[in-house]
């Protein structure tokens, strides 16, 4: 790990002032400290945000508000999360381990870096870590990599589970920067790699995530998170699906399907959503819609299995919600 200056501001304004080129915010540290040890992250200054007043969970007419420093474990146990948002609670509980959930914040979780082994290995070519150096995963071990939304420059996936649930719930992110406060939908927050895989979000330099808002959404209470992985617990997703269905008299008025483990960002399966909207919520219709969940997918040498796994995971999630 390289040396750094350390600052622990107490207000958002101070934090923004102390952030500068080459600085990094530190929340739970479970992604940043790890990457600093690997020499992948090399901040000159660490701005520890843990003393900022960004705690608490509230609800009002705009929805459920999660302050950025809330820990995943606390959110999973919070009655306002459990009540009415099963998909979010399940995604939180499927993330990492109890120890990590006590440390990891919701803000940091959305900004954690990919677990691609080549990104984490400074000896390997990686356009995300070292723009222009190439992508070792394209021809290397890419079993865990993306089948949707990737490009020639990068095939890494976004590893977060909560982000997938929040994508299905159409969550909004409150961002604080030098120019003031703005709100960005999570579904427009993440960028696809294109030619600049090092830039993963629309977050401006120094901008802080201060809050995540889950708006009131018909169907949020009929929702589920299904995570498929190599072992039952404490493992990142091969494929995951966050699904919420708004049912009215047996007919699907609206459905939201987000995928994890398959793309550089949480991936909304719009074709599958459209295929089910306005139809009767039967098992046959659910499976027909699920068959469209991987539309547009392009496999790499080692991960074609993910395409069928996406369809089956979405089909499983829909039938768990009652499509029979």
């Amino acid at each position, binding site marked *: 790990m390289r*040396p750094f*200056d*350390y600052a622990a501001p107490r207000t958002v304004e101070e934090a923004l002032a*102390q952030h500068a*080129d080459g600085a990094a915010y*530190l929340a739970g540290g*479970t992604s940043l400290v*790890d990457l600093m040890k690997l020499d992948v992250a090399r901040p000159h200054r660490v701005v520890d945000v843990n003393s900022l007043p960004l705690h608490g969970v509230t609800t009002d007419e705009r929805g459920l508000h999660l302050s950025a420093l809330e820990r995943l474990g606390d959110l999973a146990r919070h009655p306002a999360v459990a009540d009415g948002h099963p998909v979010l609670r399940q995604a939180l509980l499927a993330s990492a381990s109890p*120890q990590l959930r*006590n440390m990891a914040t919701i803000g940091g979780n959305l900004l954690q870096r990919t677990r691609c082994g080549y990104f984490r290995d400074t000896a390997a070519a990686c356009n995300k870590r070292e723009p222009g150096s190439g992508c070792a995963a394209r021809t290397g071990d890419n079993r865990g990599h993306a089948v949707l939304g990737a490009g020639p420059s990068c095939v890494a996936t976004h590893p977060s589970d909560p982000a997938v649930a929040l994508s299905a719930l159409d969550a909004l992110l409150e961002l604080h920067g030098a120019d003031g406060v703005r709100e960005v939908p999570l579904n427009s927050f993440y960028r696809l790699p294109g030619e600049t895989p090092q830039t993963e979000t629309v977050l401006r330099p120094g901008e802080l995530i201060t809050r995540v808002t889950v708006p009131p959404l018909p169907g949020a209470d009929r929702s589920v998170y299904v995570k498929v992985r190599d072992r039952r617990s404490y493992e990142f997703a091969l494929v995951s699906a966050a699904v919420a269905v708004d049912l009215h008299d047996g007919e699907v008025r609206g459905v939201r399907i987000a995928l994890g483990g398959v793309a550089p960002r949480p991936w909304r399966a719009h074709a599958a959503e459209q295929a089910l909207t306005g139809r009767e919520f039967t098992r046959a219709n659910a499976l027909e819609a699920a068959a469209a969940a991987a539309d547009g997918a392009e496999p790499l040498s080692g991960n074609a299995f993910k395409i069928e796994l996406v369809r089956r995971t979405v089909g499983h999630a829909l039938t768990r919600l009652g499509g029979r």
Partner: protein
Amino acid sequence: MTDSTAPRPPTGDHQVPLELQVNGRTARLSADIRTTLLDALRDGLGLTGSKKGCDRGQCGACTVHVDGRRVLSCLTLAVGAQGKQVTTIEGVAEGDRLSPVQQAFLDHDGFQCGFCTPGQIMSAICAIRDGDTGSDAAVREAMSGNICRCGAYEGILRAVRSAAERTARQEGTG
């Protein structure tokens, strides 16, 4: 440290004074700013019970309690742990009397080589307190962040369940 000009890579001496609250005592030491809580405990304070397994937050051998919650000391910067109550495996017994969870690990052979055991025990104490140990499946899930390379999981499972049941009985009888 608080100016807002763009920082250059710091050079020279990175030693900082640290004040940590560990097992009910105040400990002062001088350490490099990069020091993790795990290294501060082991190398700075000689508390070598917390183990360095992977040093990447994956194995759980470094599990300690910070303000009563189980966390990974290898991904915690020592500088950020100041002002918080840190408890390590060295702080859970009362004198010579082992804590019920320690005793249960002995009684049920909850280990082979013992390297992961301090982390397992620190983790189990919280899992039991949080009520996440009501069934074999619940224990497996609640303890999934602690890897045992010897594969002593069956013994660990029995130890945690037995300690949980004992705790429940004691609480039930007041």
